């Protein structure tokens, strides 16, 4: 997977590049719109990450120009602005995504995966999810561990399903709030932790290998091995 990262802040560019490469992507970086244009036209990329505040031109102008030049790869827009521009909304409806700075790396990676998945042909939607000895029946909304049925509320099931779909990957609290409760909020209380704590009490029974791990300061991960 080849990514083009367009970001003028040196610090942000370097840490993004490093963590993206660690995550297994091939990354080219550009610090201004002109370079980005040249790179994007020369070589095909699977995805673009574009900061809105570029020194020589507006990020959206760049994206629209690239679209005209035939670059069809999905774009993840990074914005340090306060309000979401109408044009960004337009792009979002067109299949692109945006992320407000500052963000958690886990969230950036999750959004990248989503964008790339959207671009690939859709496979058959599974009706069952399986992570180690944890099994979810998506049709009957039932979860079981080692063959034993778990007594979950419907909300807990949605939460567990989200963790399973991202098994092995970090999910942050704001990602959980966004996907499970449909809200982009930042509570300054531990509401999400309590939900995870309760879910863990039901999923990770006594004597079983704990599946839901807390990564302090980052989020949670459902172990898949």
């Amino acid at each position: 997977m080849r990514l083009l990262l367009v970001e003028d802040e040196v610090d942000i560019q370097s840490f993004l590049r490093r963590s993206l490469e660690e995550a297994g992507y091939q990354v080219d970086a550009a610090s201004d719109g002109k370079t980005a244009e040249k790179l994007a036209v020369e070589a095909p990329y699977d995805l673009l990450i574009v900061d809105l505040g570029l020194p020589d031109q507006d990020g959206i102008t760049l994206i629209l120009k690239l679209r005209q030049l035939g670059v069809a790869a999905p774009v993840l827009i990074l914005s340090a602005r306060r309000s979401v521009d109408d044009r960004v909304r337009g792009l979002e409806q067109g299949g692109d995504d945006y992320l407000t700075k500052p963000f958690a790396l886990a969230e950036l990676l999750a959004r990248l995966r989503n964008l790339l998945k959207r671009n690939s042909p859709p496979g058959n939607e599974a009706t069952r999810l399986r992570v180690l000895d944890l099994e979810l029946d998506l049709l009957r909304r039932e979860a079981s561990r080692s063959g034993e049925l778990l007594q979950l509320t419907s909300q807990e099931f949605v939460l567990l399903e989200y963790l399973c779909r991202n098994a092995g990957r970090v999910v942050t609290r704001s990602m959980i709030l966004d996907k499970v409760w449909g809200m982009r909020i930042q509570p300054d209380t531990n509401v999400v932790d309590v939900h995870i704590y309760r879910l863990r009490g039901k999923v990770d029974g006594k004597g079983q290998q704990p599946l839901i791990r807390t990564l302090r300061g980052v989020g949670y991960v459902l172990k898949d091995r």
Partner: protein
Amino acid sequence: MRSAAWRISLWATLAFACGTMLVFVFLHRFMAKDIQRRSDAWLSGEVEVLEDVAERTPKDALYVRVVGEVAELAGKEVPNRDLSESAPNDSVFFLQTDADGAPRLWVGAGDGEAHRKAIRAVNILPDRPMDLQVKGIGVPFRVASIRMDDGSRIYLGLSERDELKVLRSLRVRFLFLWILIVLLGFGIVFFTTWRMLSRVRQITEAASGIGHSDLNSRVPTTGKNDEVAHLALTLNRMLDRIENSMRQLHTITDSLAHDLRSPLTAIRGKLEMSLSADPHAEQAESIVSAIEELDRLTDFLNKSLDVAEAKADALRLTLTEIDLDELLRVMIDLYGPSMSEKGLQIHLCSAGPLMVAADAALLHRMVANLFDNELKHLPASHSITIRLQSDEEAATLILEDDGPGFDSEICPHLFERRVKGRDSNGHGLGLAFIDAVARAHGGAATAANREPGGARIAITLPLASSNSGLHSSALRDAC
């Protein structure tokens, strides 16, 4: 607006009607006097002629015939006389009396007895015509008298009937014309003011439509060069200036946000990377708390800028229709476990879907703020009740708890920035943010301590247009 047009036209018409009426009264009096002056001049002249005739005519058998004929002739030359009158001439009488008042000669309608009685009752001075009311005749006479050398008196009377008829017809015609003119004047004044005010109304409507989110529109201007056009131009210039300062405010907050968020992003990224490199390092704990602090700082930055923009009526909203009832249920679902961990109970009292027109992201953050506040500040084993109400225009969210309430010393300043209770470790933006969001939507927020104890926060938000109106009627059964 219409009432103003009515008022102006009524007052203008009243002034116009009074003015014209006054002018007519003066004119009428002038004419009446003039007519009377002419009658008096004629009477004085005729009475002298008659005296002369009576003097010269020998007092024989022919005297009565001669004087009578002259008097009758004089009666045919009456001024102001209505010629169409074919009835016998009763508008003039001639009377000669002896020195003792006994009648000597009478020329006129009837036997003159009533006239003589009336004359005797009033002392008529010579050389000066006077009014005389004769019993049995509705219209008064104007009577001139002269005293002859032999002591007898000559009276010549002229009925004022024709004079009064002229004046009456004048009055009737004037009244007719006056009503017509006044009605026409009212119509013209009303039409003009109504047109003028309807332009003002257009401007008002356009101006009230220009809210904080839409500053691009302008009030309609016409090519005219009058006061209303100037008003429109001035309003538009004022809007230009407001839009300009608004844009400047946005530029400032945007660049402030940008300048702070970029380094925050870099710092957060680096911290995350060093944490993921070795999650069990000695410094892991401090890195984790640094990341958490950083997130709080970001949240604080966002809220401060939102509150600042909202205070300046410059918060940019993307309005959608949101079901407040559903939002609260989701929030209770989200916060419920944390609250019950702390021993708090929460109840929702709502009669089903209630659509409000609001910015989803801001509304979510506002409600989350309310719940965060309760979760942080309400002591264990208390309960929270949330009620949803609505009237024709607004939805109201009322949150009440039975805890200790707000500190009494901060009560008057609850919605100000940096105001927080003694034991609060927040940055004092929570309620200011709630108030700011409510205001930005055209609603309001109130907070107070309840009478039996506890806090009460009420937030009103404008209803979405698609509301069925079922909510308020169904509420009575819900709670």
